[in-house]
């Protein structure tokens, strides 16, 4: 079998890429893509643990299903907000959505 | 239901009257000012009657069987849940000699204040709703024998002040209201910390004051604990009692507040602070009290002398009165700090005396400010010609302030001086000196405002209105009665004070 650490490393890498996307991208849609990456990495992590450490009940896989559901709902909502933001500020650049400040 | 329980309902009724009036007024439309005024007058009269009854019906010691706390009422509120044990929080009301006197004070001053504000025209309903909340808070604090409700009513008395001063006040009202409220609430934070500390340390799971007093006297609260937490109570309550140097909210607050608010504020509210020091400080943490009282004596004396001297060069009526209040509350604190029966009795006498005295002074100031729209002493002169009755009332109030025998000020001050001299002769001497300075600033006011050639600018001033006259007469009566026949007061207060822990006879 492929060692578990490989999958965990992969999941870690994907998660880091996702974090990078969230923190460093300017376009709101790209930030959302980063969030998606993070969520999927987390799912992969859960499934890996389920497959290797809990093959009978695969609890992790159940968790992954929850994550996918929540991710779907959240993306729908997030994109709606991004569209609203674009209509109001004529830009999808997160740096420019900064009027709720001191 | 025993007689004592029956009287407990009288106490409850006294507490509920302002709260019921407040609720009733919420439903009265704002434009129906006459109805608002009538409800308030009736409520005020009822309160005066009930509080007088409480004072008169309080049993003084005559033979062995005397219990200081009378007219009790206990209703369970919350218990046996979370951190509360048996009798966790109860609505426990009752009076002892000190609170009976304070209740009388509240009744008198509240009714006098109502009479004084009757002609208020701007948002009358809102004013009276807040006013009754204030008065209800005062009564509640005096009657509460449960720490939770003590604090509850304490806050209820403080918070409406912000709106009352901020909306209906005068000179720099926003600043005065904000400073007053923040300082008082700051003090409340200290009290709250203290309350929780005591609750935790006693380990009984109850907020009941009587139980906690017994616990304290049985040693549940260690001396170290008491010495640590006594300052919390003293400073926290002291802020409200104009303890030096936390007194600065007082001159500005009084300057900004409308007449009736000043009356109740200086008259009753400041006494709440001193009362808190007795209830929470001396009764709950007697060893801590013994330890810290010399410090309190120093601060009290500073306040007494400082307030007197600062008043000497003030030009605003209300500032003179405000600093005078700081000085008189200094006397109260000195009396408390003696930890002797005479001194503490004197302090409570002074609480009552100063309450009615200062209410009368602020009533008079309000009467002239409403017409003249200036409070600068230099603008006046020879007012006796146009407002003779006003001058008579103010003169008597002023002479009471100075401690003239025959008026309540002397009775109170003399007990305090005697008590202070027993243990701290130097401070006693300074206090008497402050009283001499009081004569100077008061007579200066008299000579600049009442006497001398009449300033023609004021020839159209009219004398006191009938309502103001009634209000003034009520307060004047209290001043004179306590000045001449002080046995009823001293009996009630003295009997209770003698039973306080660690108080020398």
């Amino acid at each position: 079998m492929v060692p578990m650490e490989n999958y965990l490393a992969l999941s870690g890498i994907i998660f880091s890429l996702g974090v990078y996307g969230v923190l460093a991208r300017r376009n709101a849609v790209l930030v959302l893509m980063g969030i998606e990456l993070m969520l999927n990495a987390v799912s992969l992590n859960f499934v890996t643990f389920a497959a290797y450490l809990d093959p009978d009940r695969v609890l992790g896989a159940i968790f992954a299903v929850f994550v996918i559901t929540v991710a779907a709902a959240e993306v729908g909502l997030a994109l709606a907000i991004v569209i609203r933001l674009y209509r109001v500020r004529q830009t999808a650049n997160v740096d420019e959505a900064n009027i709720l400040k001191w | 239901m025993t007689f004592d329980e029956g009287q407990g309902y009288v106490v409850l009724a006294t507490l509920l009257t302002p709260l019921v009036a407040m609720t009733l007024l919420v439903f009265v439309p704002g434009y129906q000012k006459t109805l608002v005024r009538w409800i308030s007058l009736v409520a005020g009269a009822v309160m005066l009657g009930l509080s007088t009854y409480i004072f008169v019906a309080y049993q003084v010691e005559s033979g062995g069987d005397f219990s200081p706390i009378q007219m009790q009422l206990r209703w369970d509120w919350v218990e046996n849940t979370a951190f509360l044990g048996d009798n966790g929080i109860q609505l426990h009301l009752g009076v002892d000699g000190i609170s009976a006197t304070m209740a009388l004070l509240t009744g008198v001053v509240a009714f006098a204040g109502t009479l004084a504000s009757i002609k208020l025209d701007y948002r009358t309903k809102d004013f009276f709703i807040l006013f009754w909340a204030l008065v209800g808070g005062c009564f509640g604090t005096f009657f509460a024998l449960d720490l939770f409700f003590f604090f509850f009513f304490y806050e209820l008395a403080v918070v409406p002040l912000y709106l009352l001063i901020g909306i209906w006040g005068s000179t720099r009202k926003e600043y005065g209201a904000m400073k007053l409220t923040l300082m008082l609430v700051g003090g409340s934070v200290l009290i709250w910390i203290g309350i929780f500390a005591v609750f935790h340390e006693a380990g009984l799971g109850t907020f009941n004051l009587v139980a906690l007093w017994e616990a304290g006297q049985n040693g549940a609260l260690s001396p170290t604990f008491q010495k640590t937490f006594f300052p919390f109570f003293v400073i926290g309550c002291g802020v409200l009692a104009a303890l030096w140097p936390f007194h600065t909210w007082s001159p500005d607050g009084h300057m900004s507040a409308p007449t009736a608010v000043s009356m109740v504020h200086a008259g009753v509210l400041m006494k709440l602070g001193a009362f808190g020091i007795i209830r929470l400080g001396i009764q709950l943490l007697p060893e801590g009290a013994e330890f810290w009282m010399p410090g309190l004596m120093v601060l009290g004396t500073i306040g007494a002398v400082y307030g007197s001297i600062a008043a000497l060069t003030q030009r605003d009526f209300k500032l003179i009165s405000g600093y005078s209040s700081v000085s008189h509350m200094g006397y109260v604190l000195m009396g408390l700090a003696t930890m002797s029966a005479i001194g503490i009795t004197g302090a409570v006498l002074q609480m009552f005396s100063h309450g009615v005295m200062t209410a009368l002074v602020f009533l008079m100031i309000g009467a002239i400010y409403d017409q003249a729209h200036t409070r600068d002493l230099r603008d006046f002169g020879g007012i006796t010609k146009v407002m003779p009755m006003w001058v008579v009332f103010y003169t008597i109030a002023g002479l009471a302030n100075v401690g003239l025998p025959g008026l309540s000020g002397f009775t109170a001050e003399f007990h305090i001086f005697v008590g202070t001299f027993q243990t701290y002769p130097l401070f006693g001497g300074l206090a008497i000196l402050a009283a001499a300075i009081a004569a100077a600033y008061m007579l200066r006011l008299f000579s600049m405002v009442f006497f001398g050639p009449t300033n023609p600018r004021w020839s159209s001033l009219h004398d006191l209105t009938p309502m103001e006259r009634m209000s003034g007469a009520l307060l004047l009566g209290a001043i004179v009665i306590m000045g001449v026949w002080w046995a009823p007061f001293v009996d009630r207060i003295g009997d209770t004070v003698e039973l306080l822990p660690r108080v020398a006879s």
Partner: protein
Amino acid sequence: MGAEQAWLLAAVPAGMFFVLALFGRYMPRGGDYLGVLAIGTSFVLFFFVLGDYLDFHNLGAGRTAITESIHWSEVGSFNLDFGTYVDPITVVMFGVVTTVALMVNIFSIGYMKGEPRYYWFFALLQLFAASMLMLVMADNLLLLLISWELVGVCSFLLIGFYWEKRSATEAAKKAFVTTRVGDVGLMIGIILLWREAGTFNIQEIIALAQNGGFGETYLFVALSFIFLGAMGKSAQVPFHVWLPDAMEGPTPVSALIHAATMVVAGVYLVARLLPAYEVADNTLLIITVVGLTTALLSGFIAIVQTDIKKVLAYSTVGQLGFMFVALGSGNVTAAMFHLMTHAFFKALLFLGSGSVIHATHHHQEMEDMGGLWRKMPITGTTFFIGSVALAGLPPLAGFWSKDEIFHAADEKWGIWAFLLLAFAAVITAFYTTRLFIRTFMGKPNNQEVYDHTHESNGFMTLPLIILAVLAIGSGFVIFRDVGEALGFPGGLSEFVFLHEPHEYEIDWGLAGTSLVIALLGVFLGAWYYWGGRLTRATRAAQFQPAIYDMLKNKFYFDDLYQWGINNVVLGFSFVTAWFDRYVVNDTGVDGSAQITGYTGSVLKYIQTGRVPNYAMAIAVGVVLLAVAGLAVRG
């Protein structure tokens, strides 16, 4: 009705005060006759008390005082009983106060006619009489203090009676505040005595002092403080400054309060406590020195005064000094005797001057007078009698009482005290003569005033005549035969005494010396002022201008006090007020509020509003929490 009901003497005027204060303005004539009635009742009651007391008084059986008392209040060990104490001193004071008060009330009907607030004047006279009577019969120091303050307030209200005048108001304020400063001492002294004795009762305190119950220094300090109060009320140096200014009040007030009764309260107090003062006998020296200083100082100032009331005011201050010298010499009889005679002839002089002022339509300066005897015979004659009494010429009352004081001072302190007193007496006679000559004799200085002057009406002249009779005759009560004829045992010195009753014997040497002293003063006065020409006097004044200026400026006491008030007291006040406003408030309170606000305004920049910043914050936070969690677990 007996001496147990002595409190009635005060109760009747007190009740009348309330009646007049509340209803006086609606009564016809402002209720003035009711005032006279009330005081008259007290006067009559005095005789009942006197009679009852004389029946009771039996030195042999040890009966010296009649007392009554009721319980007032108590707190712990602090018991207050109030009551009356009637002994010979009280009886003498009763007589003096009721007599003079009655005379003044009658006089005021004539003098105050047409004045505004007429009814209020009479009301205040009642309140004053009640308070003063209560003061002299109080059996404990607290009740005495209460009455003491009450007479002070009456004085304040009466000096400032003409409040439309700024000067009157200022004078009233000055009187009250000055005596208040003295009262600080009085209060401290009383409480100190209570602290050791556990009671305010005067007799108990005296007994304790005589039994050595007080520490020596402690008693000295306490009694000195009490003496401070007496100095304030009785206008002794350096508290004397309020009395001359008090002349702003209506003249009947000056006669009653500032000559005969209130100002002697200090003398009465010390006389009452004299047995205790004798125990702490260092106090006696202080009292004597203060009395001598005052007698001399006031005499010098009186020489250059031109307002007739001011002369009499300074004279009063000086004569009070004489009384204190008597007390300091341990002689209660002399002091009380002089108190009594002085009350009569000084009241007479003041009322006489009131008559003059009224007749000349409120002129008070001597430069407007002269030759008034011809126009005002009754006033002039009675004033003459009063002047002779004040100067101390026999056989008028003043001679006998001053003689007693000389005797007492000489016996106790020796020749130097006697000489100083004699000097003061010469000055007294001098300025008295000056006053009389310039006012009543010679040619008129102001023809217009002279023409309009006429004798005063019966209400004013009757009291003058009665007081003149008393000024002539009251001195004789010192003699045994007179005393017995009047009903009390022996002469006055057997009735009022400190150590032992003794019969009065005339010391011819001393009496002769007193006569010479008085005549010397009169002669000098006549020498300088006879004939209405002021040339000799003016030349004397120009002899040493610096001295003259010093006298004219009353030894600069007022200037010194004003400087002290302005720079020290008010300075303190400004500093305190400034400190309170700018340090405690603006820096402390507002300052801490501003620090909070400032901190907030700096921290607010964390809220950049930019989502990436917040996201970064979340990420960093998570990492920190994870590390912390692992560290704790590890």
